[in-house]
């Protein structure tokens, strides 16, 4: 299918704005955003929204130079050209904006050329979308206000909620119609959708669309209808253009209605006989010319069309105009917003609601004041499944997990996949701890049975966080989900495979952590993180032979923050990637200025798994000009054993660059000879923990024996050793006795700023 330039342009603008306004967060300025979109749509220069003679939003003028008088005059139609600084004379188009009192949107485009009728239509449609969005928002605010004012008036809530849902339905309806226009459904189907949509929303028995017959402009034909009895339809298939309330709408180009149809001068006898009591009609335009009317009629005596119902009919009539215009264009679209919106709310893997949909459902439950329970479920060690068996197996597992969870809850509960291996359950209408615990236990059990997946049987556990909210509590959906998440983390920390009920104290821990995270981000921006250097001494030569680069954080208020506190946060948030990269750059740059000394830099688990470490190291070497053999990368053994195969691959690549590799903290964790022999490492760092006990009175205990073993092991494998954390001469002597020559520790120097280290090297007169 091929599509021309302006074809479908109009419907596209509407769908884009619909998508835009429905995605805007609560506090956003809908008017300003819609104005921007509209001006951009017609490639205009300026725009303004005027309500009650006051400019409420504008665009294209310097912030302090909005020409209120000019814009108000243009809105009133007394000025047809705007003089815009920087753009010169601009032609103007003005449309009504119903949701605002005496609301109008004014748009200007440079050059005084006229806007085409298609452009006018689009602008009118965009203003309509804005009005609907504003009204929906107002209803929502009203509802919230009411809820604050009175928690008892449940009936009222329901009524408002109905209005709200109606609005939502209206937006959905319109977007569906736009979809059928843009997908080039046959015109009659589009028109049918319009009359049915109007009938459903307004709840009237009869809907009809009458269009002027192009061959005989004095008559109108019934182009689409809903609910008109066949006999009546046959009678009214063709009628005079001026007849009835519909005729009145065509003649005046405005909405017309009669609340007492029988007494109306415009009443049609056949419809009076059929029992119609009230009717309303909105004109349908093509360009600026009325070409028909959309009519609804009711058999109920006392039927009164409210302001908002009148607006609904006008909206549908305008869409009819769009459909008629569009039907004449040649091109076609295949998809549209409502489908996309539905998909955007569904997790594509499991078919379950996604996070957004879950939060909406939770919000809805909270809005009507129902007690709820939320379960936050995270699979234990799911990453392992993905990494070892591959993503397709992981995906298959997630699908079955979704099914099992869904099978473990009650009919009215909502199961969602939040992302990754996280699921959530909304227990509706209960905040009973017992019920929640039972549900959590059922889910835990359901997930504890082996999963029979194609080619693999997999067993996996799950951890669950539970939070309950009574009717009276005021936590938002986001709060509840976050609290459940916090409780889930606690469950993990307690050893996985269990569920934990949320308690407020857990949040305090989290807050402290998130403050640290915030501060750390700020610290990165403000260069509070600096690299310090601790000398490495060759005691046989009595010389500094290198240094270990260590990260230090000097917080302006908290003072020095220990790495043990902030490094885990940096790891978890991924900030470590940027930090690590910077440390590499700084350290290599610095070391390039030293006289042949080496520098060692710590590499974190995240850096290793991120996959960019090889490039980062090569980049740092390239930029600094530091010979590769003078750079040592230190890795902790716990990092390496997490995924030994991948790690080995990366280490081999790093070795190819020519750098040295060291195992840090050896012996403190998983120490395994087999992997140590397998990895291409050059240096073993003997941890402070081993050194602390040696050489002291009563030494000869288990630690000092371990130290001897580690050193012997290194020697067997042909590895260099560097002894860390040496603080006393006794420790030094004892480790020297074991044959060690390279040392670092407070005995010589604490980690010092780069300049100080440089000075130290220059002096190069250290006593050992």
């Amino acid at each position, binding site marked *: *299918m*091929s*599509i021309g*330039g*302006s074809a*479908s*342009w109009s419907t*596209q603008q509407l*769908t*884009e704005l*619909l*998508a*835009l306004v429905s995605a805007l967060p609560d506090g956003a300025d809908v008017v300003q955003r819609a104005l*921007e979109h509209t*001006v*951009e*749509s*017609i*490639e*205009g*220069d*300026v725009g303004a929204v005027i309500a009650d003679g006051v400019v409420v939003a504008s*665009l*294209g*003028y*310097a*912030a302090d*130079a909005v020409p209120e008088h000019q814009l108000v005059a243009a809105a009133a139609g007394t000025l047809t050209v705007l003089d*815009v*600084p*920087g*753009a010169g004379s601009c032609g103007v188009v003005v449309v009504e904006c119903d949701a605002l009192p005496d609301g109008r949107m004014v748009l200007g*485009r*440079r050059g005084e050329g006229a806007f085409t009728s298609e*452009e006018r239509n689009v602008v009118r449609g965009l203003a309509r979308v804005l009005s609907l969005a504003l009204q929906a928002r107002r209803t929502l605010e009203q509802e919230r206000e009411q809820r604050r004012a009175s928690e008892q008036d449940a009936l009222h809530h329901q009524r408002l909620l109905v209005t709200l849902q109606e609005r939502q339905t209206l937006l959905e309806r319109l977007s569906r119609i736009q979809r059928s226009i843009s997908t080039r459904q046959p015109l009659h189907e589009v028109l049918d959708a319009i009359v049915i949509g109007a009938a459903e929303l307004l709840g009237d028995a009869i809907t009809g669309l009458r269009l002027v017959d192009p061959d005989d402009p004095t008559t109108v034909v019934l182009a689409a209808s809903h609910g008109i009895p066949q006999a009546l339809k046959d009678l009214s298939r063709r009628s005079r253009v001026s007849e009835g309330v519909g005729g009145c709408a065509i003649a005046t180009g405005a909405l017309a209605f009669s609340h007492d149809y029988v007494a109306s001068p415009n009443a049609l006898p056949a419809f009076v006989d059929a029992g119609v009591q009230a009717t309303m009609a909105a004109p349908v335009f093509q360009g600026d010319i009325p070409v028909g009317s959309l009519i609804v009629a009711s058999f109920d005596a006392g039927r009164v069309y409210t302001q908002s119902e009148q607006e609904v009919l006008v909206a549908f009539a305008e869409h009819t105009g769009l459909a008629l215009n569009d039907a004449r264009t040649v091109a076609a*679209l*295949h*998809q*549209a*917003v409502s*489908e*996309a919106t539905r*998909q*955007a709310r569904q997790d594509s893997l499991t078919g379950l609601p996604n996070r957004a949909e879950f939060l909406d459902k939770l919000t809805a439950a909270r809005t009507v004041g129902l007690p709820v329970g939320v379960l936050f479920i995270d699979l234990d060690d799911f990453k392992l499944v993905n990494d070892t068996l591959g993503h397709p197996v992981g995906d298959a597992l997630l699908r079955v997990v979704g099914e099992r969870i869904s099978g473990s809850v009650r009919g009215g509960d909502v199961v969602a996949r939040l992302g990754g291996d996280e699921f959530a359950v909304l227990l509706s209408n209960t905040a009973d701890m017992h019920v929640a615990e039972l549900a959590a236990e059922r889910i835990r059990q359901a997930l504890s049975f082996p999963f029979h997946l194609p080619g693999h049987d997999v067993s996996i556990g799950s951890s669950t966080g539970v939070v309950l909210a009574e009717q009276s509590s005021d936590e938002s959906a986001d709060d509840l989900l976050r609290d459940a998440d916090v409780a889930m983390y606690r469950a993990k920390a307690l050893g996985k495979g269990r569920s934990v009920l949320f308690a407020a104290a857990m949040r305090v821990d989290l807050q402290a952590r998130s403050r640290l995270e915030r501060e750390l*981000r700020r610290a990165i*921006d403000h260069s509070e993180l600096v690299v310090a250097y601790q000398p490495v001494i060759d005691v046989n030569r009595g010389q500094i032979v290198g240094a270990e680069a260590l990260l230090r954080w000097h917080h302006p208020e908290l003072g020095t923050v220990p790495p043990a506190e902030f490094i885990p946060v940096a790891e978890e948030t991924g900030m470590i990637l*940027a930090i690590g*990269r910077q440390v590499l750059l700084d350290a290599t*740059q610095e070391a390039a200025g030293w006289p042949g000394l080496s520098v060692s830099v710590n590499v974190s688990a995240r850096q290793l798994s991120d996959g960019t470490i090889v490039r980062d190291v090569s*980049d740092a070497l390239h*930029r600094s000009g530091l010979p590769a053999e003078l750079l040592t990368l230190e890795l902790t053994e716990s990092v390496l054993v997490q995924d030994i195969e991948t790690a080995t691959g990366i280490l081999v690549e790093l070795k190819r660059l020519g750098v040295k590799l060291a195992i840090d903290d050896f012996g403190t964790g998983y120490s395994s000879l087999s992997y140590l022999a397998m990895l291409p490492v050059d240096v073993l760092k003997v941890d402070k923990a081993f050194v602390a006990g040696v050489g002291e009175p009563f030494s000869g205990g288990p630690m000092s024996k371990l130290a001897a073993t580690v050193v012997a092991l290194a020697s067997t494998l042909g590895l260099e050793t560097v002894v860390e954390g040496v603080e006393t001469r006794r420790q030094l002597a004892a480790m020297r006795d074991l044959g060690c020559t390279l040392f670092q520790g407070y005995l010589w120097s604490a980690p010092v700023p780069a300049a100080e280290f440089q000075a130290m090297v220059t002096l190069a007169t250290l006593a050992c």
Partner: protein
Amino acid sequence: MTTDVCTRWAGAGSSVAGDAAVAGREAALDAVSGREGAALLVVFASDAYDLPVLTGAIRDAAPGVPLIGCSTAGEIASSGAGDHGVVVMALGGPGFQISTATAEVSRHGLREAGAVVAAATADIKASPYRVLLVLSDGLAGDQEEIVRGAYAVVGAEVPLVGGCAGDDLRMTVTTQLLDGSVQTGTVVAAAIGSDAPLGIGVEHGWRRVGDAMVVTSSNGVRVDTLDDQPALDVYLRRLRAPAEAYTDPAAFTRFALTHPLGLSRRSTEELRMVAEPDFETRSLVCIARVPQGGLAWIMEGDANSVLDATDAACSAALQGLGGLRPLGLFAFDCIARRAVLGVEGIRTEIERIALHADGAPVGGFYTYGEIARNSAVGGFHNQTLVVLAVG
């Protein structure tokens, strides 16, 4: 190379010296060329340099002169385009009024950051001709928002022009410069007031390939589905992308450079550079927002169409000078155009720009996105050449 017209002047200097301090000093001295009254330095530098050292050297060579600048994906000078170098443009003489500003995106948000730097135009109100030269962190998110924020402050009265900083296609971190400060995640800007006209030209030179697709699901700069299919798959399949683009992010980005998306607009296509793939969610990540519900085409260009656009952009910019000879030209050229043109092509392109400049100095850089809001709102571009002619 320098040009003197009455008392106002523009100069350009460039260097590819390996040492940052030497390069900075050479380029700055060349740009100023000993003239009095330097009012603004605009620096385009490779981040292969130690940028604090480079900036320090420039400031030492031209003390106290306001400076803005950014890291690049290649630099443009009268003498040609290059990598791992630095270009300094200088404006001077009593006919210029300058005010510079910076804003952190993380602190203000994109839109507000645009508004904050645009406030600098308040200082040049007295000038008859004005422009806001904006250099932003191209990796900081939806750049359209920055333009909207700036437009909300200056309106149609002050055109916006500039580009997004680059990092030689590593797509990790870009740098912005303001006076002595070396920043990332910011927008820097210079409000330039001039006694003589300023002209802006914008052209891209790409055309549609194949049928239109509907953006069935997108979220900001991320396109999830096209025609209801995973966007990444549709994109790779339709373009018969090379095998490595299916698995290697870097290979993908190189390939995507020459195949932007075009969004249907009233009279043209708005281009979107496809920056990276998300192999996990099968999405495309673009440099600016791609609205859901819209139509999109895959676009392609060749050396001829792209070079024609170069001529058109230069001519349009010069036309804005109302017959005056240019003092200097700024060029903000998309890295993607460079990829299409190749080494020979960019040599030709720079020669053509130099020809239009008619002896006036030229300076600029290869960008991650271009800014030009001259007529009609919406002023963020991709895959485009933006030329600012200073009259």
